[in-house]
Structure formats: C-alpha cells, structure tokens
C-alpha cells in the first residue's frame, strides 16, 4: 500500500522555529484532496505536540508523520522528563509552565486537551525519567 513518511526534529526551547514541523506537514496535506477540517485537526495536534516538546521536554524531540490511503499518523516523542500523571495533565487548564513561558502566551494548559478533542485516536505513553510518546491517528475522510 502506498505510504509516505517524514520525520522532523524539534529543538527544545527553540521558540523561533517552533511550528515548522507542523507547517511542513500541513503543506503536504494541502496538496491532497482533503477537507479543510481534517487538515486543521492534524496541524493543530501537530503544533500542540511540538510546542510541548519545545516547552516541557529536557531533550530534543521528533515529530513523525505517516500518510497511508486509510490513515494519517502523527507521533511526537521526546526523552524526558516524562509526565507524572497523564490524566491530570490532560485536564483543561492544568499546566506546569513557568511564568516566563506564560508571559510568552503559552501555558494555558490547553494543549493536551486540544489534542484529545481533535485526534480521532490518541495514545500517550510516558515514563518519568524516560520520556513521552504521543501517538495520534486521523481519518483522511473526516
């Protein structure tokens, strides 16, 4: 089956280039006959995942994108520090972002919530000290 995959590096604390991986994914998707709604869902989830690595991760991370005829996969991973309690982290408004990041307009505690709202399927694996992997799936048909 036809499939296309790309991986993008995400640099921790690099706010200037943050969003570039999601923008590249968005560009690829736009050349296809997909609804604006699907493209928007994927891009927003990619961006939130990317931003979490930039803000919260202790290491650089990776955004992996895979497109098949049936599904779009996005995976964002980093190697620490991990999320202590995923359910709490998912709650609207929960954030451990520093004041510095809040001043920059981040840290509303909406990222993971937005991802849950927009991804058709979501799996988060996180181990304290080892890192976080967020797996998202989307249906190209809507």
């Amino acid at each position: 089956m036809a499939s296309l995959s790309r991986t993008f590096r995400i640099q921790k604390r690099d706010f200037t280039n943050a969003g570039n991986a999601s923008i590249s994914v968005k560009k690829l998707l736009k050349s296809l006959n997909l609804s604006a709604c699907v493209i928007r869902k994927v891009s927003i989830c990619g961006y939130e995942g990317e931003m979490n690595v930039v803000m919260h991760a202790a290491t650089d991370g990776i955004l992996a994108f895979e497109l098949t005829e049936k599904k779009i996969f996005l995976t964002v991973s980093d190697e620490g520090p991990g999320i202590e309690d995923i359910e709490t982290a998912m709650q609207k408004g929960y954030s451990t972002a520093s004041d510095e990041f809040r001043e920059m307009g981040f840290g509303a505690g909406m990222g993971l919530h937005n991802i849950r709202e927009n991804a058709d399927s979501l799996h988060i694996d996180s181990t304290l000290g080892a890192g976080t992997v967020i797996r998202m799936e989307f249906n190209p048909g809507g």
Partner: protein
Amino acid sequence: MADTNTIPCYVLVNSDNCTGCGACAKSCPTRAIRIKNGKSIHLTDSCIGCGECIRVCPQGCITPAPFDPGAFKKEKHPVLFVAPVLYSQFPDARPRDVLTGLRRMGFQYVVDMSYFFEMFQWATRRFIREKAPELPVLSTMCPVVMRLVAFKYPGLFGHLNQVLRPVSIIVKEAAALIARKEGVRLSDLSIFYLNPCPTKMGIKESARLKQSPYISRSIGINQIYPELKKHITDIMESDTVDYVETGFEFEHPPCSEGILWSICGGESAGLKLDKTLAVSGLEETMLYLEKTELDIFKDFSFIEFRACREGCVGGSLCAMDKYVAKSAVHKISGRINRSKNFSKEIKNRFYEQKWIPDKKTTEQMEKIFGGKKKPLSIRSLTRIDALYGKLPGYNCSACGAPDCYAFAEDVIRRRCKLADCIFIKGGN
C-alpha cells in the same frame, strides 16, 4: 514585440530578452514559473499576480499585462480612482496638487479612495467589537493576499473581514453620482484605476469586471509618473492655481488617516483595537498565514497583511523607492490638519445600519480569487515523495523547475520528463 505568453495571467514575458536565467521561477511563491527551451513560461492556473517576478527579472522582460496608459485621453468621460499611495510618490506636493495634476492630464473626475477606506475602517472596528467574529480577523485589502488565501490557505476564509471591501462600493456609488451629474448612462463612463501593483491588471480580473456596466482598466503609477510630475511641478510653481472642487461629493483630498493606508500598519493602527498585527512582504505574509492556520494568533483581533514589503509603497509599479515613499507618507500625513478628519456621521453613512457584510461562500470566494491546483491523490503524493528522494536535492533548476520538489511534482503531473534532470540523465 516577439511572441509573448498570451495565456491569461497577471504578467507577460517578452521572450526576446529572456535569457532563461530562472530568477523568476525561483522567486515565484506559488511555483507558477518554469523555464522551457531557455525561456520563462507561466503556469497560468497558479499565478496570483504578486509581481515578484517583475521585481527580480534582471532583464526587465516581465511586465504587467500591457495597456496603453494614454488611452484614457480618447475617452469622453474618463474617471480615475486613486489609491492614497499615489501621494507618497510626490513628497513635496500637497494631495490636492496631485489631484489637480491628474485633472490637468485629462481625467474628467478624480476620486480619492481614502474617503471610503476610512468608512470601511470604521465599519471593521465595529464589526470586530460587536459581531464576535472568528479571531483574528484578516484584512481583505491586498488582492494578492486574497488570492494567496484562496490558493494556499482556504481554511482561513472564515477569518476574512466580512465588511464589504471598499472598492466594491466606491466605484458603484461614485460612478452613479457622476453619471447623474453628467446626465449620461453608466456605460458612457470609462473607469480607470491608478495602481501601485500589477495585481489588478490581469486579464482574469478584467474578465470578471465585464459584468459591470462600465469598462474599467488599470494604469500603473509608473506609467504616468513623468507626465504627472510635470503638471504637479507647474502647479506648485504658480501660486495662482488652486484646487477647485467641482462640487462632487467624493472629491475630498484625503485625511491624515487615509494617507497612512499606503504603508503597512496604517490600516490596523486606525482601527484602534487592542491587539493587532501588521505583516508585510510576501515571504513573511505566507509564514504568518501558516501560523494563523495553527491558531497561534487567536488572541489577536486583527491582522493586516500586505504582500509588498512596507505595504503599497513597495508595489512594483510605484515610481519611488519604498523607504523614501514611506517617509513621505509620514511627512504628508503630519502636515494634514487633523481637525479636517471625517466625522462619525460621514463615516457611518454607508456602513452604519446595514454593515454590508460580505456573505460570500467559500466556493464563491474561490471563484473570484481563483485558481487552485488540481489536488493529488495520496498515491501520487507518495510517488512524488519517492521520486524526490532520488533527486540530488541541489535545487539547481537546470531542469527548468524552481526546485527539486517542484520538478518531482511536474514529472508525476506529466508536465515534464524525468530525463530533464541532468543528474538523472547523466546516470548519477
């Protein structure tokens, strides 16, 4: 002139002087240009009329769709619509001298559009504050940005300012008034626009304007600059000539706020809203549209985009350096008496009750602002990606495409052969 590319498009290439250097192809934001047989050609379904190729061509062989700028002199009732950027081209003249100069050139009526721009600004402010639209609201003033949104960011249609664009009412209102005053039919008027950019000069666009009762044509500022400059110098040297209003409502010389519209930031500053952005230049515009799509600016109420750097003063048909023009804008605007600004009553006249919201659907917008490339199937995109992986990635453009990715796409779309790549052909 040799054979020119005659397919509808906003610009023309004079093949005689084209050396096939590829500068235009590399500059094109929609990848609409290829070099074939050593000459530049345009893929017309993708041209958005931004004018980057005109700017970068070292041979000067790319021009806006041609038009004889003196043609208005043969018309019986030539009416000219002037964008405020014109004043920036004459730093020492008063706006009224510029308008008088245009009349001396032979335009029967000269209408300054900034009057409507201010009304529009007023309506936009109220629209954002009272109608809770999707934020950020995006400016609809730059036609290149509109086409860019249609072409690359259709997901942002819902963010476009829904107050009807002023150009849409201004011509209708003013033309009706003039026709009545002259006792002629609308079709007896010849409407001209004086423009800083090629974006309104395309064949595509004029086809669309055919439905209106009058023919309308665009003139580039640089096309009439020398003649106008002469008249203005004469006017400034003689102190007996003064601006005489012919008693026609829309003849006001501009207010200080209107003058600022020609530089990026002028539109948003006048809105007097809390959080706004003003972004200019094609590359930055595209980057910030991308970011807007990611919801990064949802706390901002308005974003002004201008495809030309610094705004309309950076248009490729301006006669004056953009930074010199920008400084002139501040000078002229500062000189204008603020007490002469329009009152709220005047500003409200067209927009107050009715708002005239622009209720166009996404489909209608796409039809007007146009072109979208045929979407690829997932299979084709996968094939492009696989082919791209085999290309050298030097983006050398020897194949005629602006970069390796565009080449891979051309091959899969059957616009060219794989052997056009000198590296593939050479067996590397």
